[in-house]
C-alpha cells in the first residue's frame, strides 16, 4: 500500500493544487505565457493524480478527513468520502481537459493572466465544495465559487457580458444569502451542520418542530436551486453563455450548475435524508420542480437558434434529472440521478467544446448556419454527435445508462408522472439535438466561414479538437464499460453497496 494513501491532508492538497497556481498566476505579467501555462497544467495534473490516489484509497475502504474548528461546534472540514469523490473526480479530470482547451482557445487574447487565475480558483472552489464535510464548508466554497466565476463570465468586457455578469451576481448572491440564512437556522435548530450519509437530522426533533424545519429546508433549497438552475430560478444561465466557450463548458458541466445539483443531493441525502425528506413531503416538491424543469428546459431549447443558448436550456433540463433521481425514494433512481451527475457533465462539456470550436474556427454560432460543418470538422462533429446522441439517451451511450436507471426508478415510484416525463423529455431531446446532427453532416454549407484553422495538425488547433474527442470517447466509454467497477456507474453501485447512500 502506498503510504500517501492514508494521508489525512489529501483533501486539503486537492484543493490547494489549484488554489496555489491560481494565486500565483494572479501576480504574473501578461506576457509570461510559458510559466502561466506550466503552472496551470502542473496544477491540473497534480490535482488529477491526487484525486486518483484518493479514489484508490476510498476504493480500499479508507476515508479522508481534514478539519479545523472555526467556531464552537462548527468546523471547516474537507472529507473524501464516496459521494465527494464522485464529484471531485469528475471536476478534476474535466478540468485537466478544459485547461488544455482553454489554453488553445484563448491564445492571443488579452487578460489571460486574469482569466487563468480565476479559472484555477473556480476549480478550487468546486473541488472544495465537492469535498465539503459539512454545510458550513459547503457554504464557504459555494460563495467562493460565485466570486471566482464572475470575472470569467464578464471576461470579454462587452456590455452584454457585463449585463450577464450582473444578472449572474444578482441571482447567485441573493441565493447565497438565503443559503447562509438557512444554514444558520439549521445550526441554531439542530446544532449540527455535518454531512452524514443517510441524513444528519434526528427525525424526532424534526417532528417536534415541523414548520421550522420546513422553512429551513426551503431556505436551503432556494439557495441551491439558483445555481442548479431549477425553474423559475434559472434565468441567469442562458444569459451567462456569452462567456468564452471554456467557461461555458466549465459552468455547465463541472462547476456552477453542478455545484447546485450536488448541493441538492447533499441536502436530500446527507442533511435531511431521503426518508425524512419524503416523510416531510418535501421530496415530492423537489421531484415535481425537477420534473417541470425537465420539460420546460427541453421545450425552450427547441426553438433556440443560437447553439450555445440551445445547449444552455438543455442544461437546465438535463440537470434536473439529478434532482429528480435523488428525490425519488428508490435505489434505482438514486443511482440514475448520481450517475447522471457525472454523465451529463462529460457529455455537456463535449458539446460546449465543439460549440467553441465551431465559433472559433468557422465563426458559426447558430444552428441554422451549421450546414456542412461536419465535412469540414469531422472529428469535432463526430464528438458532438456522440455526445448529442448520448444526451438523447440512445444505447450504448452514457446517457442511456442514467436514463435507464431513472426509468426503472420511475416505474417503481408512486408518482405516475415520472415515466411519462422522462419519455417526453427524451423525445424532446431528440427533437432539438438530432436536427443539429443532421444539418451538420447532411446539409450543404449555408453560411460564410472565416475558417481560420486550416493547415493545423488536425482539422484545427489540436488543443481545441483533442479535448472534445477525449471527452466524447469518455462519454462513450462510460456507457460501453458501465459494467466495470471503475465506471461512474460501478462507483455509484459501490457506494450503494457500502451504504453510503
Amino acid at each position, binding site marked *: 500500500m502506498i503510504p500517501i494513501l492514508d494521508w489525512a491532508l489529501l483533501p486539503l492538497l486537492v484543493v490547494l493544487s489549484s488554489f496555489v497556481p491560481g494565486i500565483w498566476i*494572479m501576480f504574473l505579467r501578461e506576457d509570461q505565457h510559458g510559466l502561466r501555462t506550466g503552472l496551470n497544467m502542473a496544477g491540473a495534473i497534480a490535482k488529477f493524480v491526487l484525486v486518483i490516489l484518493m479514489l484508490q484509497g476510498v476504493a480500499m475502504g479508507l476515508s479522508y478527513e481534514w478539519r*479545523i474548528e472555526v467556531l*464552537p461546534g*462548527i468546523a471547516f472540514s474537507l472529507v473524501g468520502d464516496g459521494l465527494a469523490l464522485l464529484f471531485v473526480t469528475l471536476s478534476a479530470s474535466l478540468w485537466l481537459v478544459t485547461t488544455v482547451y482553454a489554453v488553445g482557445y484563448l491564445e492571443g487574447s488579452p487578460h489571460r493572466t486574469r482569466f487563468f487565475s480565476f479559472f484555477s480558483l473556480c476549480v478550487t472552489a468546486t473541488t472544495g465544495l465537492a469535498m465539503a464535510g459539512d454545510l458550513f464548508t459547503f457554504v464557504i466554497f459555494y460563495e467562493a465559487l460565485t*466570486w471566482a466565476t464572475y470575472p470569467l463570465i464578464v471576461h470579454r*468586457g462587452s456590455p452584454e457580458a457585463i449585463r450577464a455578469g450582473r444578472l449572474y*451576481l444578482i441571482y447567485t448572491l441573493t441565493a447565497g*444569502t438565503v443559503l447562509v*440564512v438557512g444554514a444558520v*437556522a439549521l445550526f441554531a435548530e439542530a446544532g449540527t451542520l455535518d454531512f452524514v450519509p443517510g441524513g444528519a437530522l434526528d427525525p424526532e426533533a424534526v417532528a417536534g418542530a415541523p414548520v421550522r424545519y420546513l422553512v429551513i429546508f426551503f431556505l436551503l433549497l432556494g439557495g441551491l436551486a439558483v445555481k442548479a438552475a431549477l425553474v423559475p430560478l434559472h434565468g441567469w444561465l442562458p444569459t451567462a453563455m456569452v462567456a468564452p466557450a471554456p467557461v461555458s463548458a466549465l459552468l455547465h458541466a463541472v462547476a456552477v450548475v453542478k455545484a447546485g445539483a450536488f448541493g441538492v443531493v447533499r441536502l436530500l441525502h446527507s442533511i435531511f435524508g431521503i426518508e425524512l425528506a419524503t416523510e416531510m413531503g418535501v421530496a415530492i416538491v423537489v421531484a415535481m420542480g425537477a420534473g417541470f424543469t425537465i420539460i420546460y428546459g427541453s421545450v425552450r431549447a427547441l426553438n433556440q437558434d443560437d447553439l450555445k443558448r440551445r445547449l444552455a436550456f438543455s442544461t437546465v433540463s438535463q440537470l434536473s434529472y439529478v434532482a429528480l433521481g435523488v428525490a425519488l425514494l428508490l435505489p434505482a433512481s438514486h443511482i440514475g440521478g448520481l450517475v447522471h451527475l457525472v454523465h451529463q457533465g462529460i457529455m455537456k462539456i463535449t458539446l460546449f467544446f465543439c460549440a467553441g470550436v465551431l465559433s472559433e474556427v468557422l465563426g458559426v454560432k447558430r444552428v441554422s448556419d451549421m450546414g456542412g460543418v461536419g465535412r469540414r470538422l469531422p472529428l469535432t462533429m463526430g464528438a458532438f454527435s456522440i455526445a448529442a446522441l448520448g444526451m438523447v439517451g440512445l444505447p450504448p451511450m452514457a446517457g442511456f445508462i442514467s436514463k435507464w436507471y431513472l426509468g426503472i426508478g420511475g416505474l417503481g415510484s408512486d408518482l405516475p408522472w415520472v415515466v411519462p416525463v422522462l419519455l417526453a423529455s427524451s423525445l424532446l431531446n431528440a427533437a432539438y439535438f438530432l436536427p443539429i446532427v443532421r444539418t451538420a453532416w447532411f446539409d450543404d454549407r449555408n453560411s460564410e466561414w472565416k475558417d481560420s484553422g486550416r493547415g493545423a495538425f488536425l482539422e484545427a488547433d489540436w488543443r481545441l479538437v483533442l479535448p472534445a474527442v477525449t471527452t466524447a470517447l469518455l462519454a462513450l466509454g462510460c456507457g460501453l464499460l458501465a459494467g466495470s467497477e471503475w465506471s461512474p456507474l460501478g462507483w455509484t453501485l459501490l457506494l450503494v453497496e457500502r451504504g453510503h447512500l
Partner: protein
Amino acid sequence: MTDVALWSTAAVAGPLLGAILTLVRGRLFTQLGLAVAAASSLLAGLGLTRIVALEGPGRHLLGGWGAPLGIELLADGLAVIMLLTTAGVGSAVSLYATAYFGDVDDPGMDVAPGGRAARFFTPVWLLLWTSLNGVFLSGDLFNLYVNLEILGLSAAAVVTLAVTAKATLAGMRYLLVSLVGSMLFLLGVALLYTAYGTLSLEGLAAAGPTGVVPAVALGAMTVGLAAKTALFPLHAWLPPAHSAAPAPGSALLSALVVKASFYIIVRLWLHVYGVGLVGAGEGALLFLGALGAGAVVWGSLLALRQLSLKRLIAYSTVAQIGYLFIMFPLLPEVAGGVAQEGEMGWRVDAWGGGIYHAVSHAFAKAAMFLAAGTMTYAVADDSLPSISGIAHRLPMSFLAFGLGGLSLAGLPPSGGFVAKWLMLSAALATDRWLWAGIIALGGLLTIAYVLLVMRYALEVRETPTAFRSVPRRMEWTAMALALTAVALGFRAVEILDLLDVGGAAPW
C-alpha cells in the same frame, strides 16, 4: 512589578513617548516615534492577551491606590482584543503613512500645502493612539472622559490636516459634535458621581445602577457616545469628515476611532448597567437595535448614491456601525419575553458576533480606505469615474479593496462572514426573523456598493487619466490588512474564547 502593570503601562506610555519623539521632527524621529508606539502597543497587546487568556482579567492599580480612590486599568478579553486590533491596524496604517506623506525632510514640504499634514500626521496620530489604548484599558468614568477628549481633539486634527475647504468644514463639524458628545458624557458622569459617589466602573456596577438618575445619566452618555460613534441618525458628520481626511487618517477614523466610543457604550450598557437582564431593559435594547437597522439600510442606500470613492466608503462605515448596534437586541436569551431577574443570560453568539464584527470591520475598512487612498494618490482625484481602469494598474490595491469588501459584505471566507454568521445564529435561534432579514439585506446592499467601485476600477477608458506611480509600501500594507480580515474567518474559536474572559455578563 507585575506583567499586567508593565504591559498596560506600555500600551499607554508607549504611543505617548512615541508622540513626544516625533515632535522633535525630522525623518529619523518620526520613524523612531512610530516604531516605539507600534512595538509597545503590539507587545502590550500580546502580553496582556497572554495574561488574560491564562490567568483571567488583569488589573493595574495606578499610583497604588486602587478604586474608588485611585484609577484602575482593567484588561479583560474585550479590552485586549480591541488593543490588539488597534495595534494591528495602527501599525499597518503607520507604515502606509510613512510612504503616503512622503519624506518629511524634503524641503519641498514647506512649499506644498500638504507639507503640514506630512509633518503633523505622526504626532497627532500617536496622541490618538494613546487615547485609544487609554479608552480600552480605562476602568474609571472620568478617566474615560479625559481620554475621549484627547481622542476627539486629535481625531478632528487628523481631518483638518487636509487643506481643502471641505476638509476644514468637515473637521469643524466633527470637532463640535465630538465636544458636545463629550459634554453629554460628562453630564452622565456628574449624575452618576452625585448618585453613587464613585467613578470606578466596577464600583458602579457593584452598586447596581437603577432608577431615574442612572437612567438619565445613561441616556445622556449614550446620546453623546452615539454621536461620536455616528450612530444613525447622528451620523451626518461622518461621511464628510472621513472622506475629506488624508487616506491614512480616514482609515484610522473609520476603523478605530468610532469603535472607541462604541466600546464605551458596550461597557456601560452591558458591564456597568447590565441593561436588559431584567425585562424592562429590553425596550431600550430594541431601540438601539432599531437605530442600528436604520443605519444599515440608510447608510448602504446612500453609499450606493455616491460618486466619490472615499465618500462611498465613509457611508459604508455608517452602515457597518449599524451592525454593531444590532448586536444589542440580539443579546437577551429570550426574544420579547419578560424574564425574571437572574433567569436570563446574554447570548454568547450575539456578543461574539458584535465584537467580531467590530474587529473584522476595523481590518477590512482600514484596508479599503488605504487601497482607496492609493488609488486617489495615483490619479489625484477622488471621483469614481477617475479611477476607471485602475484595477489594471494597481492590481494589488484593487485586490485589497475587493477582499476588504468581501469581509465587509460578510461573504465567506472572512472575519465579516463569521461575525454575520454569529449574529444570524443569535437572531434565528430566538426566532428574531426580522433581525435576520435586516442582517442579510445589509450584506446584499454592501455587495452592491463594493461592486459599484470594482466595476469602475475594472472598466477601461479610452482616454487614460494622469497616473503617477505609487510606493510599493502603500500597496502591500493595505493588502496585509485585507488578508487579516479574511484570515479572521478561519479561526474564530480562540478569539471567542478570549472574549469569554470577562464576557458580556454584568460585572
